């Protein structure tokens, strides 16, 4: 998929662990891990909303489109 998820970068910037984010957002660590590693097929707006609220960022800070058409799936 050409959409890259920069969740780990944001976690470092906000000095937060995946566990803490999981507790704040209400998504399991395994699901966040799936999102972080780029294996997710889709993200709900409600989840994206909760993540942006927890990390105090914009969706564009977490999601990035790489135009070279690289498919990691």
């Amino acid at each position, binding site marked *: 998929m050409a959409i890259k998820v920069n969740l780990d970068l944001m976690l470092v910037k906000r000095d937060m662990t995946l566990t803490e984010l999981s507790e704040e957002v209400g998504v399991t660590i395994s*699901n966040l891990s*799936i*999102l972080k590693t780029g294996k*997710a*097929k*889709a*993200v*709900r707006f409600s989840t994206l909303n909760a993540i942006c609220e927890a990390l105090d960022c914009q969706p564009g800070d977490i999601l990035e489109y790489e135009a070279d058409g690289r498919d990691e799936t």
Partner: protein
Amino acid sequence: MPVRFVAPAISLQKEEYISMARSNVLFFILTLIYVFVFFWFLRKFIASLRTPAFFTRQNALYLYTTATLVLIARFLSGGGLPGYAQIFSEYQFTGASKIETGLDISIVLFFFGLILLVVGWCFDQGVKLQKEQDLTI
């Protein structure tokens, strides 16, 4: 044993009788094995209805296997050696000169198998949707 239905009015050569009896016993055993395998796969599929993970690849395969077994049944009940044995074990006489078999449900089984195959394909699509749902955060 199915051989108990042989009526004494029919004149059979001993060798012919033994051949028919053997083929009938073989068919009887094959039918038992077939029925066991069929219900084993069907039971596995039905048992999975109680689990939360219902739309899985394994359950789709169980359904496909059950459908294939039903399709095969059409050919097992139709002709060749099993058909010969069927005449021997289940029949009616008319004036001791005519042997009639029972109702042939093989074509019904064939269509039922096809329908089951379509259901299996729909289930497979459900498995794909479930996979996508599992990877939706």
